[in-house]
């Protein structure tokens, strides 16, 4: 076909490229299922159609060489599809090679605009032989040829062979059908740059929204408040939608792994079964791009160093076929990726020895290292335990590069290994890098943002507690948090901030409980402000050396606030020392305990009744001055966070409690469900305890779900849903959803 219009031609080529790369990835995948013998009756049809489409399109836009190469494989596939030939392992290898050759040409076309002048005649000859049913000389040479493919000297271009008549017919029919089905009606292709720009604009909009919301907070003008609230909701929705457009399932990059696993394991003479779970887990595309190479490297490493050869495995009473599991899932606003193998595990002694040989550690250090610390040596630059440098791993890109790349995007890598049982790499990465929820705190007159992912809970110590709650262990401050010692870090001291007189005089202690690298610590700040969505902006080169800041953001009032890097801060404060292995040993214990123990809030309503509710039901504890209490209809209400919070006097609903005298300020337990909140008015908040909950008596009284012995006293468990239903029958009936 003559080239009438250059732009049109380019467009056609682009379409061909996108379509063909997708198609060939699919081709590889399907070939592998066929190799495993798991192919569906339709599988051969699918791979045939992929090649057929490429051939047809290439022919249409005058790419003769691609067409002719595609043609040879197509002929073979058509015979296979029609059951005229049986698929054999050499055929699969040859066809995969053939897919590589096509990809190679397409890549060349993408880069240079030409089909390239590489010679594929050897490959084509092999395919033709297979088609004719002639046996290959031997299986091994085919293998070697696969790797020598790209080094072949260019000879003459393969002549296009005439296709058998049977095939010719199908082509004509399909090519006609193809033209009408290429455009999908529901999806469009959008330039990624355009999406990035959109994301930046939304980022700016979020900042402007924050400013407006803060500004209107002081106003009482109802129209303005309304408009601000709508702006607020719309911005959040817009932000989520734009975020979603950039999300891609992790399966997109995993699609290439079966092929890599197959090639690498064949080359190394290993048998490996790859299992992938959670392909549909979605990630921001910038993150997807960033983890592609590290993941590929880890997988190559697992096959090369992890999984043993079949004979070694059989000798160790393991199935000859090694298992490699890739798993992705969302957890706590992060994406977790685990790469597990059931190989030989990491040889602690050998790693130590290697590190010593390479002078990465001193003998003294080596002796004192825990297993976990030894595993982490693998991430040191210049470390490689492979006995010999193979084609597969040991290309000068070590695990240190993997670690740096993952940390660059705010992720972390952890390694667990057991000798003879296998190795697991756990990668945690944020969902997105652009906009994150954060807690704003103040210390030394400066505001700081703490990413919500690091935040566990907030503790406020008042009066007596503030003076006695914090104990010193050889000068190191600690706080007892539900029976565990929580090391404390003072943000003022760590950052060398000046404390204002106001802050010095304040009797209360605010502790932000944080988690870094699996360890908890408490950070003492002067003031806890609020949570906010912040737009993460990078710091200039001049400030890159300070590890305790992850970036900066612009607050609602236009001022800049620094974002704390919790891990960096923990290291600065020496909370994370490498000698303890707490995180690993403590976790299982905590899990079993969580099953039968519950955290309860103890309080009084009326003079004598001692009550408890599970802390998980409590959204917040608040105090309201009596003068703020208003009446709406026959109910007490209070304005709370831009909403009207109905108040329920608990004592009114408890048949036995004496009527409570009104206190000032009023103590309120805020309970939220499905976006609606209600305040339960109590007389006094007593304590928060962790108890094994055994309900002793089930005699139902109004508003009471049962009784238990807590701290050696009989305590009634409040029936919160029952009380709310009695006070406001509509509360559960029509869940109002403002923020879907």
């Amino acid at each position, binding site marked *: 076909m003559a080239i009438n219009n250059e732009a049109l031609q380019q467009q056609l080529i682009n379409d061909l490229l996108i379509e063909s790369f997708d198609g060939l990835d699919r081709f590889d995948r399907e070939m592998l299922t066929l190799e495993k013998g798991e192919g569906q009756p339709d599988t051969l049809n699918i791979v045939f159609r992929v090649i057929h489409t490429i051939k047809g399109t290439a022919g249409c836009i005058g790419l003769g060489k691609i067409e002719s190469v595609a043609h040879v494989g197509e002929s073979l596939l058509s015979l296979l599809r029609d059951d005229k030939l049986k698929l054999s392992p050499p055929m699969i290898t040859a066809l995969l090679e053939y897919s590589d050759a096509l990809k190679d040409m397409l890549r060349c076309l993408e880069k240079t605009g030409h089909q390239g002048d590489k010679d594929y005649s050897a490959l084509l000859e092999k395919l033709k032989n297979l088609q004719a049913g002639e046996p290959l000389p031997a299986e091994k040479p085919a293998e070697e040829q696969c790797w020598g493919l790209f080094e072949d000297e260019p000879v003459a271009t393969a002549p296009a062979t005439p296709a058998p008549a049977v095939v010719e017919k199908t082509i004509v029919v399909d090519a006609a059908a193809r033209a009408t089905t290429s455009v999908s009606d529901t999806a469009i292709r959008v330039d990624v740059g355009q999406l990035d720009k959109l994301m930046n604009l939304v980022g700016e909009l979020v900042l402007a929204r924050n400013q407006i919301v803060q500004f209107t907070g002081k106003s009482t003008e109802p129209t303005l408040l309304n408009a601000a609230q709508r702006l607020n909701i719309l911005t959040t929705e817009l932000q989520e939608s734009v975020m979603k457009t950039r999300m891609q399932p992790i399966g997109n990059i995993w699609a290439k792994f079966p092929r890599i696993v197959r090639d690498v394991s064949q080359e190394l003479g290993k048998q490996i079964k790859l299992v992938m779970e959670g392909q549909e887990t979605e990630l921001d595309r910038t993150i997807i791009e960033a983890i592609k190479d590290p993941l590929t490297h880890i997988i190559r490493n697992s096959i090369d160093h992890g999984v043993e050869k079949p004979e070694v495995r059989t000798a160790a009473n393991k199935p000859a076929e090694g298992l490699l599991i890739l798993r992705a899932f969302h957890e706590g606003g992060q994406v977790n990726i685990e790469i597990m193998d059931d190989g030989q595990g990491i040889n602690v002694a050998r790693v130590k020895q290697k590190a010593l040989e390479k002078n990465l550690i001193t003998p003294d250090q080596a002796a004192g290292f825990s297993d976990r610390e030894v595993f982490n040596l693998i991430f040191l630059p210049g470390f490689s335990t492979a006995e010999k440098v193979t084609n597969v791993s040991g290309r000068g890109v070590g695990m240190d590069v993997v670690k740096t790349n993952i940390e660059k995007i705010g992720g972390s890598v952890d390694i667990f290994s057991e000798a003879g049982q296998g190795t697991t790499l756990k990668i945690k990465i944020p969902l997105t890098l652009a906009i994150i929820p954060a807690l704003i705190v103040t210390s030394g007159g*400066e505001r700081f943002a703490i990413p919500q992912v690091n935040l566990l809970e907030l503790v406020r110590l008042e009066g007596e507690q503030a003076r006695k709650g914090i104990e010193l262990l050889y000068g190191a401050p600690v706080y007892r948090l539900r029976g565990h010692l929580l090391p404390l870090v003072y943000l003022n001291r760590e950052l060398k901030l000046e404390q204002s007189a106001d802050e010095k005089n304040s009797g209360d202690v605010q502790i932000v409980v944080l988690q870094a690298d699996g360890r908890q610590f408490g950070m003492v700040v002067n003031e806890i402000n609020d949570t906010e969505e912040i737009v993460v*902006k*990078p710091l*200039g*080169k*001049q400030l890159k050396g300070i590890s305790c800041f992850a970036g*900066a953001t*612009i607050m609602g009032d236009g001022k*800049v*606030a620094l974002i704390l890097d919790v891990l960096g801060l923990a290291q600065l404060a020496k909370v994370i020392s490498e000698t303890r292995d707490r995180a690993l040993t403590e976790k299982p214990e905590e899990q079993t305990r969580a099953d039968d123990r519950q955290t309860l809030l103890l309080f009084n309503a009326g003079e004598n009744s001692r009550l408890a509710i599970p802390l998980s039901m409590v959204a917040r504890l608040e105090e309201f001055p009596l003068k703020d209490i208003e009446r709406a209809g026959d109910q007490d209400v209070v304005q709370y966070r831009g909403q009207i919070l109905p108040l329920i006097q608990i004592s009114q609903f408890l048949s036995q409690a004496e009527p409570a005298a009104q206190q000032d300020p009023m103590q309120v337990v805020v309970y939220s469900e499905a976006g609606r909140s209600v305040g339960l008015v109590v007389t006094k908040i007593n304590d928060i305890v962790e108890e094994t909950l055994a309900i002793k008596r089930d005699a139902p009284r109004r508003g009471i779900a049962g009784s238990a012995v807590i701290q050696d006293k009989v305590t009634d468990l409040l029936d919160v849903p029952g009380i709310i239903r009695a006070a406001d029958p509509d509360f559960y009936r029509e869940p109002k959803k403002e923020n879907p």
Partner: protein
Amino acid sequence: MSQTSKQYCTFFLNGLFFGVEVLNVQEVLRYQQMTHVPLAPATVQGLINLRGQIVTAIDLRHRLELPARVSGELPMNVVVRSEDGAISLLVDEIGDVVEIEDDVFEAPPETLRGVARDLIKGVYKLKERLLLVLDTERTVNLSGVTALAKEQNN
């Protein structure tokens, strides 16, 4: 404009007259509210919000080892473009944009010592006074300074 002349944005610093090439200057701003960065090298005065972009502000007096600004005097920002994006140089006062012939340029005298020797490209001998030309790329590169600050912290 003849080929042998250049335009300079000028400013004052401790009574000295400085200039940076106009092509390197993005904009000039009055005093901006600044966020202090704890643990940062002392040369970094803070961060400013430049229409949604976060810009590091460098105290040029400190950078050039001049006496500190009298407290209460608010510095002005000369925002320059560097390889690393926009950076603000804090100066005492802004002067005019001047166009100067190349033939009055001279390399810095040998007697110029210390950090100034590194950061001053040369001197224009103007009729009424001398104009010191600042090498912006070197001025905003604090790699040596940062390392020093780190040592002090540890």
